[in-house]
Structure formats: C-alpha cells, structure tokens
C-alpha cells in the first residue's frame, strides 16, 4: 500500500512553492534511449492496464501527462 504521507504530498492541497516545487523534477527524469520500468494504469472504465502495454502497441506512442487543473 502506498504511504499516505506520500499520497498527501503528491496531491498537494494548495499551489504554493513549498508544496509544488518539490515535484518539478524534469532534470532527474530518465534519459531517452533507455528502457523504463512498467507502471500500473487505469482506463476510465476502471479496467487495468500498464504503461508498457500501452507504449508497445504502435511504432511510436505519444504520452501526455496532465490533469484538469
């Protein structure tokens, strides 16, 4: 089970630098050209899938990350 502190920190409740800046970590992101680990993901119908399943279906797959806000 994920740690609730981690969940709370990630899902910060207000847009203030001390809460959002810790997540701006693009400089620490994986390099291109190297395999990445798999992660569980969920479809909107609540069925499960995974990152690897999704990104190996096509010659190339665009993955945009974001949210409503």
């Amino acid at each position, binding site marked *: 089970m*994920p*740690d609730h502190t*981690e*969940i709370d920190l*990630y*899902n*910060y*409740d*207000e*847009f*203030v*630098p001390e809460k*959002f800046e810790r*997540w*701006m*970590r*693009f*400089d*620490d*992101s*994986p*390099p*291109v*050209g*190297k*395999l*990445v*680990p798999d*992660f*569980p*993901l*969920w*479809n*909107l119908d*609540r069925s499960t*899938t995974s*990152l*690897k399943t*999704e*990104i*190996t*279906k*096509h*010659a*190339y*797959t*665009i*993955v*945009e*990350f*974001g*949210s*409503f*806000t």
Partner: protein
Amino acid sequence: MNKVAVDFENSDIGSVFIYTHEAHPGENYPHLTSMDQKFRHAEALRDVYGVTRRILLDALNGACHRHFGSMPNMTWIFNRSGIPVYKSDWSDSHSVRNALEYYLEIPNRRKAGERLAPFHVERLDYRNQERELFYESLERNGPKAVAEFQKAFPSG
C-alpha cells in the same frame, strides 16, 4: 494535441493522456484524496476540455508521473520497444509533430540506403503560452486556484 493524434493515427502512432494530480487545485476541482475522485476529474477533463485521446489514470501516489519527472504538462514519445525517444518538459503540439515527422522518415532513409545510428540531441523549443486560456482554466478550477497562482507568480 488531439489533432496531432488524429493526424498521425494512420501512421501507426498511438496517443494517450495520463491523468496525474491537480496542479492548481481549487474549490471546483480540489486536490485528490481517492481514486474515485480521480476518475471523476478525468471524466471532467474528457467532457469539459474535449480530450479525445484515451485517458489513463496513474496511481493515486503518482508513481508513473513521478518517475518521469512529475512536470504538470509534459510529453514523452516511446518507440515500440518501450524506450523513450523524445521528452519535453511542457507539451507543445508543434514540437511533438516535428519529432514524429522526423521519426517516421527513418524507415524511408534506411530503405534509401542510409546507415543510421542513434545519438542524443538537446534543443530549446518554443511553445505558445496561451495566457488567456490558462487564466480561463484557473477560473474554472475556482477562485482559490487563481489567487494562489497570482501569489506564486505576481508578474503572471
């Protein structure tokens, strides 16, 4: 980004949107505390913003998003082997389109006899900031989201 997905769907290019966390939580779309809520917000993203690509939800702790740098609206492109070939800390359709056109040309270049080997490149691309649309979206989130952004970035 929807149009890029449509324009390239017949070229064996897939496109998905991974739902992360609320970057600018407000009264109408507060921070996430459950997967049920995350599903509701993702459905709102589809219905209100008209995202036509498949929307996939990351875990509530953002395990996938955090692994890739947890920027609020970034884009990656993976090849069929599951290897990232492009990463961008912000999403920009012009940049993504440009990258796809480059990658789709590779088989033709190989057929033409070129011996190609991968290499790394960094470049600075330019995105449209779309400030009016951004402020409209903040207002949709709720007054709290607007006030917090203005406080964090007084110059806008």
